[in-house]
């Protein structure tokens, strides 16, 4: 690794100043993407700003009104083990659990995953189907935007000079909402998603789908929301036929490429299979346990 200056700001203001003063500085969270790239000399930042010791940066908390807050230092492992993430934000917790190994999950942050903006980022589909927003701090103050808009292309996010991500806020899901995420990889662990699919559904007391989210990973330059497939589900009872129809439409919406991991055709077919499974898993999770037992 090339030499660089290391900053460990204790306040948001110090962090913004450090980033503003060193235009080519890079933010360091868990380092599981950044340090690998610095070793390879793909990135050669003259300065590195570590955001892990900012106040509340390791905060992972839930409140009924505001939802789930994920600080800039919150690790994949924290989310994986969080009972509130598992029960209310299944797709996000499951995405975090797929990442690397325990050692990697102890370091890798959710926010680093989003900032890194890989199309295969395992927490992105879950965050996007839950309408998560990034909170950005910068020289001009704070702003927020959806994770969906924030991730702009492979390795590209919406941050401007001097800005960094302070936290992610995920709205509290409506009652009878469930979500799930799965990825396909040739190996069970330590692999990158060939296809990843996150889904969420909200059901009315009578079992009609009132809202649906489907997000596809690794089949477009960014995690891709399958909006046409979503609209097929809304207002409907989630019968196997409807779910299969939505899954087929989702596979049409995907824009996969052929690369070393898989052909475009294989990816498209996997989108269909996994979307079907994830809508089913999400609606199971959305169904209150009592009626599930009775059924």
């Amino acid at each position, binding site marked *: 690794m090339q030499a660089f200056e290391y900053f*460990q700001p204790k306040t948001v203001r110090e962090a913004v100043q450090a980033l503003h003063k060193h235009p080519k500085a890079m933010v360091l969270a868990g380092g*599981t993407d950044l340090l690998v790239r610095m070793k390879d000399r793909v990135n050669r930042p003259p300065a590195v700003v570590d955001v892990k010791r900012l106040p509340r940066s390791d905060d992972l908390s839930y409140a009924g009104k505001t939802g789930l807050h994920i600080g800039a230092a919150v690790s994949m*492992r924290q989310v994986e083990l969080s009972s509130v993430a598992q029960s209310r934000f299944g797709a996000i917790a499951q995405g975090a659990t797929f990442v690397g190994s325990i050692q990697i999950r102890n*370091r890798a942050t959710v926010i680093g995953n989003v900032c890194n903006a890989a199309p295969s980022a395992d927490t992105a589909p879950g965050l996007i189907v839950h309408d998560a927003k990034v909170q950005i701090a910068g020289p001009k103050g704070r702003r927020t935007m959806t994770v969906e808009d924030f991730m702009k292309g492979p390795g590209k996010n919406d941050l401007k000079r001097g800005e960094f991500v302070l936290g992610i806020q995920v709205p509290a899901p409506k009652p009878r909402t469930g979500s799930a995420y799965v990825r396909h990889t040739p190996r069970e662990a330590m692999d990158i998603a060939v296809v990843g699919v996150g889904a969420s559904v909200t059901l009315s007391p009578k079992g009609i789908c009132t809202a649906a989210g489907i997000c596809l990973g690794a089949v477009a330059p960014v995690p891709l929301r399958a909006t046409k497939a979503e609209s097929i589900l809304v207002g409907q009872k989630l019968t196997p036929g409807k779910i299969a129809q939505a899954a087929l439409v989702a596979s049409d919406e995907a824009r996969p490429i052929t690369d070393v991991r898989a052909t475009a055709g294989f990816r498209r077919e996997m989108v269909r299979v996994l979307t079907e499974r994830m809508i089913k898993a999400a609606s199971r999770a959305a169904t209150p346990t009592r009626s599930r037992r009775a059924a």
Partner: protein
Amino acid sequence: MTHDIELTVNGVAHSVSVEPRKTLLSVLRDQLHMTGTKEGCSTGDCGACTVILDGKTVTSCLVLGVEADGSDVTTIEGIATCEELHPVQEAIVEKGGVQCGFCTAGIIVSSVALLNENPKPTPDQIRRGLAGNLCRCTGYTKVIEAVTDAAKKIKKPARRKVSKRK
């Protein structure tokens, strides 16, 4: 510019002057001369460099030394006592869970941490817990057997004592 950091390694406090670009792995091996922790891939994939940082296993090749300022680190050198091996180490020897030995330090550190969190893991939980520790020699079967065996060996009375103290 170097940074002066303080860290505790296996219970011993150290003050070291580190360059920001030096990894924790390099600080341990090259500055503190504790060479039990190995460097395999240097990219987080193989787990040979696994250490316990503030209670959590990490790949020390992907942690900067400066990031470990104020931290508590356990390396493979801190697993056995002067008198006896840790049950995981004993079991690895007995079951033949070691061949060339390059992965072994990492495998033992990960296994010890795994058993601390989950004293009675299933073989599947052991496999998932060790997913980040690659081994080119053993084929893993003997390693899984050893960790299963170690879980049985770790004496129950000792753990009961700990929980009573709460």
